[in-house]
């Protein structure tokens, strides 16, 4: 009781005898943050237009034309923020509204001639133009690109590649004009990656010359069918084909699911997949077929056919080969996905790096202004290696596109493995980049308007659709193992897939790794080749040993998943580096080429720093690994002054970035608030 009173008295005494000595620090406010136009402070050291031409690869004027069309139309939701205009869908709208608007935007593109000739003009130039325009649509909105992709590349592609003349004549023009709206019914509730296991069953009735498609159980319902929930009139339905009691495997059939007025056809049931974490502009649906009858001509018969009296005919006797021939054309989807992932990473990095060049936090010395985010070594380390990787992957994506559009049957295997490898690597890279970018933008990364965080939900699906990434990577190691066996069995050198380096002696990596060596193209290529070679040897040995112990090959492959993962990554990295070196060597000497060399080193050395294989299997000693890590840090500080020019070279117009990439103080000012 006494203590309390004493304490109370002490407190009051302190109030009365407060030392009126002057404050040593005056309460002057820090000067208001001043945003300066970035381009004035950080001029470019190389030709940005030339770099963009390298990164985009083709059809730059067409891309800018489509950017311009979207910028000028109210349909694409231009929004004034401060003194700038940004163009992006309103993701706050309901699912139904977003779906409607996406269809209306497609109609707009149709009217403007954007999709003219996408299916009917089959030249290489046309294919490249198609890719370019879809990439631009994707930069605007992933849902828009997906709706276009489903209709043109999946439905349209199926008609083109699985169908024959009569299908082309009947369906392609109507598809191009959106008289029919197509979708692609392959995936089922119970089967996604394993297409061969789908449960929809089709039989043939020779009396009426109809096929009958049926969903025999709930797990056979078609699922995630983009376009099916609201708009599609027709679908390519994949199904097991039973002829005379024999299952002939998976085939594709054209089925009408809605009439021209939008009413669902009889014996077809459709349900909605519901709200998603992203891509709510795509109306994904579920489809049940209740013994639906379709004419015999609706079988897409480029690989196999059924005669009017019910005889199964195919030039390819082996069902595995037949299935492979079937799926080969779907590679276009993987190619465009790999590219889409890289453009998404570009958007994230452009916004985040520009933000980091204007946002400050903490001073490192008293009475000094706060430091720019990108001037922190740790911030550089988080973003600049991702920037270099994005550059590297962009060049590879273009290389893949070029091989694809000029494809020949001999190149099928190469295209298949490259598209699988790149689809997996690039989509994973994109998700990692977006997450890092979101964090690097702090709270601003949470605003949908700022795009970076929102893109995560939109692009997440890329790692699992069109082939689950993990499954794809396993397929790579399987393919490489098959190459290994074939070369060994025939006692012939490796040929194709860039594996020729396996034929020569194993490169010897230098013991000492000073900066000059580390940055040398030859060292980097050698290091990647050493890793790939060693991992392929180990993997093959492991499988063969297990088989020798009596394990079945499939079981051995599954058990060796750790090596398979490492090998898949090694293969993918090596291909990307090879493409990068090619681009670099084809560039004339000068500041652009010097910049490419810098980025190439950043790409290679970061891969070496991050992949435990190098230490685990001893390609690098611990000292060398430390030297690599140090070099990465050095490269970060050397790339820092070029960061702005490097992201400006992406060629993404300002309106498609977001407010934090510019004067974010003005964008958030009271006068910018909509009252």
């Amino acid at each position, binding site marked *: 009781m006494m203590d309390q009173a004493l304490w109370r008295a002490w407190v009051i005494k302190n109030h009365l005898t407060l030392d009126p000595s002057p404050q040593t620090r005056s309460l002057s406010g820090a000067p208001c943050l001043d945003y300066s136009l970035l381009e004035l402070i950080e001029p470019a050291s190389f030709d940005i237009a030339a770099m963009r031409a390298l990164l985009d690869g083709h059809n730059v004027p067409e891309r800018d*034309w489509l*950017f*311009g069309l979207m910028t*000028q*139309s109210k349909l694409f939701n231009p929004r004034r923020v401060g003194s700038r205009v940004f163009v992006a869908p309103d993701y706050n709208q309901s699912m139904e509204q977003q779906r409607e608007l996406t269809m209306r935007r497609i109609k707009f593109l149709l*009217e403007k*001639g954007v999709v003219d000739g996408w299916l009917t003009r089959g030249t290489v130039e046309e294919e490249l133009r198609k890719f370019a325009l879809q990439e631009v649509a994707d930069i605007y909105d992933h849902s828009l690109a997906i709706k276009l992709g489903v209709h043109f590349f999946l439905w349209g592609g199926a008609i083109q590649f699985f169908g024959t003349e009569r299908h082309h004549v009947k369906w392609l023009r109507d598809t191009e004009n959106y008289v029919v709206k197509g979708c692609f019914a392959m995936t089922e509730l119970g089967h996604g990656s394993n297409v061969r296991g789908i449960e929809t069953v089709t039989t043939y009735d020779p009396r009426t010359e109809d096929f009958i498609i049926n969903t025999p159980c709930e797990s056979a319902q078609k699922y995630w069918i983009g376009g099916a929930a609201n708009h599609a009139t027709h679908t390519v339905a994949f199904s097991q084909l039973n002829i005379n009691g024999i299952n002939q495997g998976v085939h594709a059939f054209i089925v009408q699911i809605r009439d021209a007025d939008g009413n669902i056809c009889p014996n077809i049931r459709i349900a909605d997949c519901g709200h998603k974490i992203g891509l709510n502009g795509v109306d994904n649906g579920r489809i049940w077929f209740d013994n639906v009858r379709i004419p015999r001509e609706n079988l897409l018969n480029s690989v196999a056919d059924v005669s009017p009296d019910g005889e199964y005919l195919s030039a390819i006797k082996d069902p595995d080969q037949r299935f492979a021939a079937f799926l080969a054309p779907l590679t276009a989807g993987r190619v465009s996905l790999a590219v889409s992932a890289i453009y998404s990473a570009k958007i994230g990095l452009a916004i985040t790096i520009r933000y980091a060049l204007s946002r400050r936090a903490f001073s490192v010395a008293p009475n000094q202004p706060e430091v720019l985010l990108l001037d922190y070594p740790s911030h550089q380390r988080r973003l600049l290696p991702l920037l270099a990787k994005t550059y590297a992957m962009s060049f590879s994506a273009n290389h893949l596109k070029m091989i694809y559009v000029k494809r020949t049957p001999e190149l099928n295997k190469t295209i298949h493995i490259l598209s699988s490898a790149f689809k997996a690597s690039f989509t994973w890279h994109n998700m990692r980049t977006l997450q890092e970018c979101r964090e690097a933008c702090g709270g601003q990364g949470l605003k949908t308007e700022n795009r970076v965080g929102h893109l995560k939900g939109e692009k997440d699906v890329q790692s699992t659709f069109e082939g689950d990434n993990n499954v794809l990577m396993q397929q790579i190691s399987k393919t490489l193992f098959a190459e290994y066996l074939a070369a060994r069995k025939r006692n012939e050198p490796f040929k194709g897939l860039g594996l020729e380096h396996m034929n020569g002696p194993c490169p010897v990596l230098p013991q000492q790794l000073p900066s000059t060596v580390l940055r040398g193209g030859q060292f980097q290529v050698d290091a990647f080749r050493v890793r790939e070679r060693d991992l392929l040897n180990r993997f093959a040995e492991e499988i063969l040993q297990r088989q020798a112990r009596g394990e079945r090959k499939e079981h051995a492959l599954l058990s060796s998943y750790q090596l398979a993962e490492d090998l898949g990554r090694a293969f993918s990295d090596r291909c990307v580096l090879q493409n990068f070196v090619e681009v670099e060597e084809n560039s004339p000497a000068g500041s652009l080429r010097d910049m490419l060399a810098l980025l190439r080193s950043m790409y290679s050395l970061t891969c070496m720093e991050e992949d435990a294989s190098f230490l685990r299997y001893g390609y690098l000693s611990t000292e060398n690994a430390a030297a690599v890590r140090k070099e990465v840090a050095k490269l970060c500080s050397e790339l820092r002054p070029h960061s702005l020019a490097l992201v400006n070279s992406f060629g993404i117009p*300002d309106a498609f970035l977001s407010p934090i990439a510019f004067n974010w103080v003005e964008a958030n000012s009271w006068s910018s608030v909509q009252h």
Partner: protein
Amino acid sequence: MASFSSSNGQEDQVLVEEKSFARTLILNRPEQLNAATDYMISRFLELLLLYEKDSNVKLVIVKGKGRAFSAGGDVTSAVHDINSGKWKSVAIFFRKNYTLHYLIATYSKPQVSIMNGIVMGGGAGCSTHGSFRVATENSVFSMPETALGLFPDVGASYFLSRLPGHFGEYLGLTGARLDGAEMLACGLATHFVPSAKLPSLEAALHTVDSSDQAVISAIIGEYSELPMLKEQSAYHRLDVINRCFSRRTVEDILSALEREATNKVDGWILASIQSLKKASPTSLKISLRSIREGRLQGVGQCLVREYRMVCHVIRGEVSKDFVEVLQLIRRLLYSLI
């Protein structure tokens, strides 16, 4: 700073009025429709730079004497220079001109341009980039460069590309004329004030004591009206304009217009087809691309790019059309002497 006082009475080409915190610059070559000479551009630039630093200046007003605001740059001196191979001095003129436009576009104090008459070419450059543009019933706007073998410059690739839809391509390629109401509707003008009320408006502006844009906007707003667009205005048919002028190439635009002409015989469609057919084909293609690239660039980038383009044009490298036009003008002038 060197002042541009000259010996042959050039000072009169730009008159200055100082009223309290407002400075009014008056383009004063009414017989030549206030076509801007090298002196006028220099003087304009000099004054603006001075005013930016002068804390006693809060507002700049720009207007023209006579029936024009400004019909553009004075090409007569350019004629002589280009023909005698001295393209560099013409280039310097353009450079100074574009620098002035950039200054106007990025000026830290508000500028009110009173466009009570003809606003063409360079005249648009001196007004449209400013913060406030007042049109009247006498205003006539046009970017006629394609008919002259040039292309809409003075930062037009910036401001035309930002008009609604593809109206900018329409104006830039056809050189179509807009009246005051149309200028307001599409955003080239920020306000419309009947010419009778201009004296009171200017008097009100002279009382301004701050650079606050909201205050100035409110003052102009008090004298503003919302005029009706004339019935045959092309602006009513923005859907058709967008359909045609969004096409990828000049050829496609022309065929789209000709297709529209078979459906509906709107006067402006026929006029557009005529203008396109009479214009320099190279100019049309350069203009279209310039506007489309400008759509994705800032005003500074646009002006830099246009300067490069105009240098090529005046050197006659890409096409001799502009040079020929100037020679034609020269022959006309000589024939009038």
